[in-house]
C-alpha cells in the first residue's frame, strides 16, 4: 500500500522564473524523505507537483512506476498534511476525517469504522464531535494527519507540518509522527526549512537550493560529509576554513588550515587530485583549552564573544595568525571554568584530524 515516487527530470517555470530545474530523484516505498531548503528554494513547488496542484513544465512524475503527471489531484492516491492544516472549519473532527472517504463513496458502516480507527491512531478518541476552532494546535495537527492517512494513500505529503506549533509541542509531535510512519510503513515526503526536523526524522534528506538538489543522502552523511558549501552552511553551523595540501604519505595527507594549524588527515577525506579546498569544521569539533604557553598542534586564539545556551556555550574565537579569521566553537556550559573562557581570555584550539571533512567542490 505504499509506493515509490520517481521524479524524472521534473522542472517548473513561471514565465521567466525557474522555480524547479529538472530534478531527478527516486524515493523508495516506505521511505521517510525530507525536502530541506530555505524559503523560496522550490521545495514546496516540488511537493505541490507530487500532489498535483502544479503541473510540471518538464519531466514526469511516477508513482509505483506509473506515470501520474497528467492526473488531477483528486484522483491521485496521494494525500497531504497542509501547512496550517487547512481543516474545514464548518465540519467537526469526524466530518473532517470522513471527508475523503465520503468523496470515495465508502459505505457508511466501513466509513464509521475507518474514521474511528484513524482517530484512535492519533489518540483523538472522544474528540470527534469537536470543531477545529475548539482544538489546540497539537490536536489540529493530529486531525490533519488522521484526515490524510484515513484515505490510505500510497504516499503522504507533509508541508511544514510543525510550523504552527510551539517549540515544546514540536518536539513531541515530531516523535509521534516518526512513530506513526514506522507503524504505517507509508512513504512520507516532508517539506521543511528546519534542519533539526530534517535530521531527526528522515531516512534521507534532499537539500534543495535555487530549484535544484544540492545533495541527497542519510542525515549523518548530509551533516558529516556535505557535498557543497551551501549544504555545509545550511545544515548545522560550519566553519569553512581554507585548507592547503602540503604533503602526505601512507594513506594520510598533510594539510595546513588557515590560521596555521597543521594536521595529518585520512586520505579518503581529501578530494582526490586537489591542491586546495576548504575544511568543514563543526563548532563541536573545535576543542578549546585555556592557553598555557606553546603547544602543538594547537592554534592560539582570543575569545571575542560568548553566548550562553544553558547546556552549552557558543564561543567566537579569533585566530592569532589567521588574518582576523573567526571560528565558532561549542563548549559545555559548566560553571567551573567559565572564567577561563570569558570574553578576552586566550585559548588554545585543537581540531581532531580524523573526522575533519573537506569540501569536494572547493
Amino acid at each position, binding site marked *: 500500500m505504499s509506493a515509490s515516487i520517481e521524479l524524472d527530470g521534473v522542472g517548473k517555470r513561471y514565465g521567466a522564473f525557474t522555480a524547479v530545474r529538472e530534478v531527478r530523484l527516486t524515493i523508495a516505498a516506505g521511505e521517510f524523505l525530507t525536502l530541506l531548503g530555505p524559503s523560496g528554494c522550490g521545495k514546496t513547488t516540488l511537493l505541490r507537483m507530487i500532489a498535483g496542484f502544479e503541473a510540471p513544465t518538464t519531466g514526469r512524475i511516477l508513482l509505483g512506476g506509473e506515470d501520474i503527471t497528467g492526473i488531477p489531484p483528486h484522483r491521485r492516491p496521494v*494525500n497531504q498534511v*497542509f*501547512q496550517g492544516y*487547512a481543516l474545514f*472549519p*464548518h465540519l467537526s473532527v469526524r466530518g473532517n476525517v470522513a471527508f475523503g472517504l465520503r*468523496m470515495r463513496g465508502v459505505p457508511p458502516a466501513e466509513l464509521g469504522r475507518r474514521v474511528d480507527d484513524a482517530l484512535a491512531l492519533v489518540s483523538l478518541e472522544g474528540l470527534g464531535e469537536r*470543531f477545529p476552532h475548539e482544538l489546540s494546535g497539537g490536536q489540529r495537527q493530529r486531525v490533519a494527519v488522521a484526515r490524510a492517512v484515513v484515505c490510505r494513500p500510497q504516499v503522504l505529503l507533509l508541508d511544514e507540518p510543525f510550523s504552527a506549533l510551539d517549540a515544546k509541542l514540536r518536539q513531541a509531535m515530531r516523535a509521534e509522527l516518526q512513530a506513526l510512519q514506522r507503524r504505517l510503513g507509508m512513504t512520507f515526503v516532508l517539506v521543511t526549512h528546519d534542519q533539526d526536523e530534517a535530521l531527526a526524522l528522515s531516512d534521507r534528506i534532499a537539500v534543495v537550493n535555487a530549484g535544484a538538489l544540492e545533495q541527497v543522502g542519510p542525515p549523518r552523511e548530509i551533516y558529516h560529509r556535505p557535498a557543497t558549501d551551501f549544504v555545509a552552511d545550511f545544515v548545522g553551523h560550519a566553519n569553512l576554513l581554507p585548507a592547503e595540501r602540503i604533503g602526505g604519505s601512507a594513506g594520510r595527507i598533510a594539510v595546513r588550515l588557515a590560521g596555521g594549524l597543521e594536521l595529518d588527515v585520512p586520505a579518503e577525506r581529501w578530494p582526490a587530485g586537489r591542491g586546495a579546498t576548504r575544511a568543514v569544521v563543526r563548532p563541536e569539533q573545535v576543542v578549546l583549552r585555556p592557553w598555557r604557553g606553546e603547544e602543538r598542534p594547537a592554534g592560539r586564539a582570543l575569545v571575542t564573544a560568548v553566548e550562553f545556551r544553558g547546556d552549552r556555550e557558543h564561543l567566537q574565537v579569533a585566530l592569532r595568525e589567521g588574518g582576523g579569521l573567526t571560528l565558532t566553537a561549542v563548549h559545555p556550559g559548566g560553571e567551573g571554568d567559565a572564567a577561563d573562557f570569558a570574553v578576552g581570555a586566550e585559548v588554545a584550539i585543537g581540531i581532531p584530524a580524523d573526522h575533519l571533512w573537506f569540501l569536494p567542490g572547493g
Partner: protein
Amino acid sequence: MTPEPVARDPGARPGTLAWLLLAPLLAWLALFVVVPALLLLGCSLGERDEFGQVLWGFSLENYARLLDPVYLRIFLRSLGFAALTTGLCLLIGYPVAYHLARAAPRVRELLLLLVMVPFWTSFLVRTYAWMAILREEGLLNALVAWLQPAWAPLGLLYTPAAVVTGLVYSYLPFLILPVYASVEKLDGALIEAAHDLGAGPWRVFPTVILPLTLPGIAAGVTLVFVPAVAMFAVTDLLGGARVPLIGNVIQNQFLQARDWPFGAALGVALLGLFLVSQLVLRALRPRGALRG
C-alpha cells in the same frame, strides 16, 4: 503558532471614549429609526377622521383590515416577487462574486469598479433608462426588429417580467458585494485540501465553498429581499401600477388615500415579518465556526 495578541473580552463594557465615539451613531439611530418606528406603531393604532387627520387612540381595527384577502394576496405577491428577485440575483450574482474574488488583483479592481459604476447615477434615472430599453419603440425592440424584421414588437414594459428585471438590476450589487467579501476570505488551501481528499471540481462547491460562503449569502439575500419586498418606484415605473405590490399599497395609503393609520399598520406588519424571518435565520445558524 505565534502567540496571539491579547484579545479584548468581547463582553467587556465600552469605556467613556467608546461611548463618545458611538454617540453620533446612537443619536442618529434613535432619531431616525427608533422614534419613527414608534410613531409608526402609534399611528397604526389610531384612526383617521374624514379629512385624513390622524386621531390617536388604541384600536386594532387597522390590523383587522389587513386580513382582507385583497391585502393578503398583495402581501403574498410581494413576497413572491421579492423571492424571485432574490433567487435571480443569487443565480447571477454568486458566480460573478466568486470569480471577482478569485481574479488577479488588477482585474479584480477593475471588475469591482464596474459593479459600483451604476451607483454613480440616480436610481430613478437608471429605472427610466430601463423604460427606454423596454418600451414598444425602445432599444430592445429596435434590436429585435433589426435582427428579425418579421416579428411584431414585443410588449415588454408594464409586465411582471419588466418589474422583476428592474428589481434584479437594482439589487444585484447588494448581493455581489457581501458574497464577494466572503469568497475573498475563503482560504484557498481549504479548496486544495478538498481536491486532495478526492473531491472533483463539481463536488468542492457543495461540500466546502458553499457552506463557507453562507454568511455572505445570508447577508446578500437579506440586503436584496428586504428592500425588494417594499419597493414601489420600480413597480410603479416598470409595472405601470398594473401589478400593485405591498410597497405601492403603503405609498397609496399615505399619499393618495390619506389613510395614515392603515398605511402604518401595513408598514408595521412588514417590519414584523422581517423581524420574525431574521430570528428564524439566526436560530438556524450552524454550529461550526464560519469565518464570516
